[in-house]
């Protein structure tokens, strides 16, 4: 028995020694990368996603295990992996301003200051984009596009037809008065999605801010309990009761809202300034072609206003447990700064798999089209990369013109964007514990007020009771003390 056991052990030892040189020879760096399925060439087809992964592997000289969850479940998946101890080496975060502070407090992303300094391409990006997500002097996330700003888009054909006189920065009163001209026509004057955060666009016109923020004096205050909020909420209620806002907004998805405007079923909606060109192409596809006018902000009674600033919402992180951060930063550098890789990853995919090139124009392959893929050129206006002229395909003249206009709209939107603040994590344990419920509660109160379930006074009173129950004043005291 002992003899057999010894022989077995010896054989196993021999086998491991034989396999050692092979293992040593395989020096390809292996990394896991996790990003939702609105990346990797924007296709849910696994073969097409794999084509993008292969391209990325080749460009970065690494072996990648890609985890591509559906965008609707991305955060749940990422957080489950994190809690289970499976943090991917490279991962994208969404809603970065809310989530990053929590991740940093849990020491999940790596501090990237030195790695960024060591990368010529990443260092060349305007540092203000990095500092938007800075926490205690540390950079933990690398953004890959400009801050997101939303404005209103109004169909120009309906403006002409119904004599709607609105500038790009009208007053709050003008907005209601002019869009009221559409009442009784069967057209929804203003389509709005169910996402309550978007109401901040209108609150900006009254100097109100939903949530905790640092005021002009550098003091953290609760925007829901400030005087300006009452005026803002009254205006939102008026938008609804006047019939200007879609009466069914509370169940309206983003794509439905957009389709209402594409088809002319609604005149106006709220969307990212970088989506301007979609309105041109999709309204044509819907058989109701039109141009749309951006309304960057509504000027309130005191001359205040601003577009909806969502700041940097998505960015790349490297796990604090990543064994090869140099390789990981190389992958991120390619994704953020290399024109071919960036375009393939965020929009167009890979030649031969997603598209073929005909006379310098990219044409979607049949397989890609069947999965819902369509060629998009948003990367041209969204990314930090100034020049994509090296790519072998270019948009057609109509799209080029729309994108040129889109770039101007983005610039103007950025100029007129409202405030957006990130509350640092780790300053107040009480805040860290209650941040999600505070946000959820103010959203609930605002939706109740707009829908008329409670009056503004009742809603704010309910909010105050909630605020007291989570020791809100103590939260502010802790945030202001540190």
């Amino acid at each position, binding site marked *: 028995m002992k003899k057999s056991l010894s022989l077995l052990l010896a054989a196993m030892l021999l086998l491991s020694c034989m396999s050692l040189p092979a293992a040593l020879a395989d020096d390809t760096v292996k990394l896991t990368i996790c990003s939702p399925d*609105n990346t990797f060439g924007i*296709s849910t087809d696994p073969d097409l996603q794999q084509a993008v992964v292969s391209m990325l592997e080749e460009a970065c000289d690494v072996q990648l295990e890609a985890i591509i969850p559906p965008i*609707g479940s991305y955060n749940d998946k990422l957080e489950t992996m994190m809690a289970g101890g*499976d943090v991917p080496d490279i991962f994208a975060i969404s809603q970065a301003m809310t989530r990053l502070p929590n991740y940093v407090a849990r020491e999940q992303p790596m501090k990237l200051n030195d790695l960024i300094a060591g990368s010529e391409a990443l260092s060349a990006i305007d540092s203000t984009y990095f500092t938007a997500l800075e926490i205690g002097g540390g950079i933990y996330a690398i953004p890959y596009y400009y801050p997101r700003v939303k404005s209103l888009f109004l169909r120009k054909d309906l403006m002409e037809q119904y004599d709607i006189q609105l500038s790009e920065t009208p007053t709050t009163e003008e907005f209601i008065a002019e869009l009221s001209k559409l009442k009784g026509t069967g057209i929804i004057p203003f389509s709005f999605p169910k996402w309550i955060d978007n109401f901040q666009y209108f609150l900006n016109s009254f100097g109100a801010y939903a949530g905790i923020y640092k005021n002009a004096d550098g003091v953290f205050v609760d925007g829901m309990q400030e005087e300006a909020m009452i005026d803002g909420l009254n205006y939102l209620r008026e938008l609804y009761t006047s019939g200007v806002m879609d009466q069914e907004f509370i169940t309206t998805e983003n794509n*439905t809202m957009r389709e209402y405007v594409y088809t002319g079923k609604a005149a106006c909606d709220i969307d*990212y300034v*970088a989506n301007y060109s979609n309105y041109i192409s999709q309204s044509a596809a819907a058989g109701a072609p039109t141009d749309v006018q951006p309304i960057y902000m509504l000027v309130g009674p005191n001359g205040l206003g601003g577009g909806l600033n969502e700041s940097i919402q998505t960015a790349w992180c490297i796990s604090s447990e990543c064994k090869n951060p140099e390789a990981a930063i190389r992958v991120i550098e390619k994704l953020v700064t290399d024109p071919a890789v960036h375009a393939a990853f965020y929009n167009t995919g890979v030649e031969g798999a997603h598209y073929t090139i005909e006379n310098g124009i990219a044409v979607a392959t049949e397989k890609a089209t*069947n999965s819902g893929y369509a060629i998009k050129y948003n990367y041209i206006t969204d990314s930090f990369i100034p020049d994509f002229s090296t790519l072998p395909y270019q948009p057609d003249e109509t799209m080029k013109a729309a994108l040129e206009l889109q770039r101007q709209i983005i610039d103007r939107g950025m100029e007129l964007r409202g405030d957006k603040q990130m509350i640092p994590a780790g300053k107040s344990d009480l805040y860290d514990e209650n941040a999600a419920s505070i946000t959820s509660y103010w959203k609930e109160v605002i939706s109740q007020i707009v829908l008329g379930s409670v009056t503004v006074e009742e809603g704010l009173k309910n909010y105050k009771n909630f605020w007291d129950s989570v020791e809100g004043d103590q939260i502010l005291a802790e945030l202001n003390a540190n």
Partner: protein
Amino acid sequence: MLHAVSKNTIRESGARKTFRVFNVLFLTLICVVVVIPIWNVLITSLAKDQDVMGGVFLIVPPSLTFQSYARVLHSGYMRGFWNSMYVALIGTACAMTITVPLGFALAQKRLIARNFFMKLVSLTLVFDAGIMPLYVLIRSLGLIDNRWSLILPFMLSSFNLIIVKNFMMSIPESFVESAWLDGCNDLMALVRIVIPMSVPILAAVTLFYFVSFWNRYTEAVMFINNSSKYTLQVMLRALIYQSDGSLGEGNVVYDNTKMAVMVLGMLPVMLIYPFVQRHFVSGLMLGGVKG
């Protein structure tokens, strides 16, 4: 003769007639409420792109084309379909292999500590550990990114086990005893006597298991990393969300394509149901009566 029949017929009171009319109307209404969404899915899947834009709710077909189905059948969604089929078929087979003998064993009054085992089973009906402990368990078993992670943890449903056990308890003991007298052991008695007598409940439970494996979503997202192993439900949800990406850079996927994938998702259950329907109600009724 006719007169005699008429004489013996029980005359319905006015109130009963009203009740019957109300019943028919009420049940028709419920049927309509159930059928309308399915009809809408079907009609939308057969409409052209232009006819489905703008959040329309179609009841009457504005156009009739199979372009969405042609797209779906030649797309990556078919891989999701086959992945779902793999998980559902193997999962159901494994689940039935475990549930039936266990139900039979628990139905035997001579089983030592039967009540204790039943209490253990019932406990899991009340307490659910949630996704995190399950994730950690799957990870410890090395099953992350393995299709078996969608099968192994769900191979036994306490609810299904209890109804199978209850049904088997309703089979007279004398049948099993006769089998023993004829030289059968427990396994043979189960296979030759009990299973043939339990077809209604087995048909119902098979359908339950199949549907539960077929529709599993959260676990497929959490435990599977490689998108080529995603089930159809994951791909369907991805498709629905893709054109509503909160960042706005998703594709524009029209509702007709989404609905065609939905039809694909409903198809297996809709095909299986008619075959087991006649056993379905009787199986459930019989399984539910004895505790």
